[in-house]
């Protein structure tokens, strides 16, 4: 798990894939719990497939899928018993690794001194069912919160302790576009264990491969059989086919350059006429990391705590300083969000901030679609920006393809 936690460490692992039956999932839960992990995975609740701490494999959403569109999300019954036959829901793994509220420190004051204790020990999560796009999103958060000049103790503590079980994507949703961001549907790195789910009537199994030593050790504890070529090919073909079935695609343009050259585009007025500046897109985005802080005291005034809470660049006071806010208009706030996500993120953290999961499209109350807005901006730009295949900057990185 240590290796999987750190994309800076090259994991040399060429494990032979094995096949585990769906009846191995309880054993997977038992093994993870015996290792001290709290398992987090998908389950059906409140009409959605949410991510939650799970007690047992029985809580997985067997036979449930989802239908998504811009501004729409519905769970639906599947014709099979797939446990991971759904695209992204309203949460992402950042809810657990970079929680909405976290205590950064607490302090006690006496007459002559202040004693401070830091964030302390963090929970150890096994993340089960992480889509390849979301594996990439965790890598993006790593670069922001762990691998910069300073490491965020809450995130780094949780991340270092996490065990990542990816499940490759074989049925992308209508709002998915990870293939065009180079972030899926196959899992390439950043996981301890990767599964590909295959369901043929009663024959419900997973092709499993480890990405780390810890993953290999876990796999060794599960009932399994060697993977035959036909099963492996079937799994690979399903993932390959998924790449062609994405409901959306990000336009193939030099996105950072497009964003820079669109800073004064008339299109921001058009977006702002629809955008409610509610910030939903930032809450559901698996890489949006912005936080504010809250200092609180008890009634004595001598015990103080600082809490980190999610914030959004769509809120007015996000840029509030003495003298007023910097980004007052809705135009400027949407521009900040999409320009950061697709453009300036590269300069700040060395990759795109978008992994193509489609959550922002689904959970936007008015159905604003990041791929369509990028296309609209591109349509208003000179041809040079559109020359993705040509220019120096129009390399893999420009469309978000970046190895962890």
């Amino acid at each position: 798990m240590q290796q999987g936690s750190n994309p800076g460490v090259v994991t040399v692992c060429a494990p032979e894939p094995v096949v585990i039956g769906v009846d191995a999932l309880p054993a997977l839960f038992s093994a993870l719990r015996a290792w001290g992990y709290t398992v987090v995975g998908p389950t059906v609740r409140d009409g959605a497939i949410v991510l939650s701490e799970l007690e047992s494999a029985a809580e997985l959403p067997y036979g449930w899928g989802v239908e998504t569109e811009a501004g729409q999300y519905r769970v639906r019954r599947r014709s099979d018993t797939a446990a991971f036959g759904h695209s992204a829901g309203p949460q992402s793994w950042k809810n657990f690794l970079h929680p909405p509220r976290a205590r950064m420190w607490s302090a006690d004051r006496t007459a002559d001194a202040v004693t401070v204790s830091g964030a302390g020990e963090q929970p150890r999560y096994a993340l089960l069912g992480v889509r390849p796009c979301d594996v990439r999103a965790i890598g993006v958060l790593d670069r922001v919160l762990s691998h910069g000049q300073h490491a965020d103790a809450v995130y780094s503590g949780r991340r270092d302790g996490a065990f990542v079980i990816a499940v490759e994507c074989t049925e992308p949703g209508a709002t998915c576009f990870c293939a065009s961001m180079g972030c899926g549907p196959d899992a390439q790195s950043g996981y301890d264990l990767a599964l590909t789910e295959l369901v043929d009537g009663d024959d419900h199994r997973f092709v499993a491969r480890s990405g780390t030593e810890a993953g290999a050790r876990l796999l060794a504890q599960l009932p399994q059989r060697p993977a035959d070529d036909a099963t492996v090919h079937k799994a690979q073909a399903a993932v390959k086919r998924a790449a062609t079935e994405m409901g959306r695609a990000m336009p193939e343009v030099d996105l950072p350059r497009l964003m820079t050259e669109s800073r004064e585009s008339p299109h921001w007025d058009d977006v702002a006429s629809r955008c409610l500046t509610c910030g939903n897109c930032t809450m559901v985005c698996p890489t949006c990391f912005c936080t504010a802080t809250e200092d609180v005291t008890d009634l004595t005034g001598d015990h103080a705590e600082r809490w980190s809470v999610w914030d959004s660049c769509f809120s007015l006071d996000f840029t509030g300083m003495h003298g007023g806010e910097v980004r007052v208009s809705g135009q400027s706030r949407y521009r900040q969000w999409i320009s950061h996500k697709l453009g300036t993120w590269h300069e700040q953290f060395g990759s795109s901030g978008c992994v193509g999961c489609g959550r922002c499209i689904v959970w936007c109350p008015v159905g604003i679609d990041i791929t369509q807005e990028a296309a609209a901006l591109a349509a208003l730009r000179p041809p040079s920006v559109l020359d993705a295949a040509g220019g120096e900057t129009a390399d893999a990185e420009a469309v978000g393809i970046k190895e962890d």
Partner: protein
Amino acid sequence: MTTLTEAAEAEHADPAVPRFYRVVSRREDTYDTVTMELAAQADPLPLFAPGQFSMLTAFGIGEVPISLSGLGSSGGDGGGPAALRLQHTVRAVGAVTRSLCAVRPGQLIGVRGPFGTGWDLASAIGHDLLIIAGGIGLAPLRPVLLAALEDRSRYGRLVLLVGARSPADLLYPDELEAWRERGVEVAVTVDRPGEGWQGNVGVVTSLLEPAAPGANQTTAFICGPEIMMRYAAQALIALEVPTQRIQVSLERTMRCGAGWCGHCQLGPLLLCRDGPVVTYDRASELMRIREL
């Protein structure tokens, strides 16, 4: 298994956790501005460079970014690679800064840092230094002037242009006089002269022409309201000072200082990391776009 010592060290290394410094002196500079000197307790922070900033915590109230206005009474680093003493000049404009300004000697203030980029004084060796300050912007510029005075022979002219809203808002008036006596060419202007004001009236850029910086050997350090910095930089460009030799100190909201909170973005810059000091060749376009 983590030992207690390791845990304690890890906690010390956590840049989110403030260390508490004792207020050793407090001086009221103006009706709303206070300069305080802070002394490290057990574990000092790393040494600050002029232009870098701290996150200052008022216990139970909150935290704000405040630039270093001096390294303590000695003016030097006090011996060693640690910030044993820090000076901060704080203007009371909100709940946290009001609380910080109200501190008394002996009280404890939380400090994190040093954060951000400093003034690049090394690139100015052999040049005339042109320091342009607007209002509280003089505070972050004070350490760069003091550093230049400590090492006087390496620089040409030292020119300090100060703009304030009114004579009552003028920071460090005694020090301005002392610097003048040490050969700094100091010029002051105010927007609204009070009774008895004999000096210049007008924007700080009006002091530029008389100061007449030589374009080819000038490095400029500017801190003040954004509009003032833009006008000052444009005036310097008109005098043919190269944009990469114009350094400005930019300000945005900051919650962490460490690159995690996302608030201080200005286009591609995270100002807590890539700033606050930025050369004007990078900053000018970003400062031009409205609401960026």
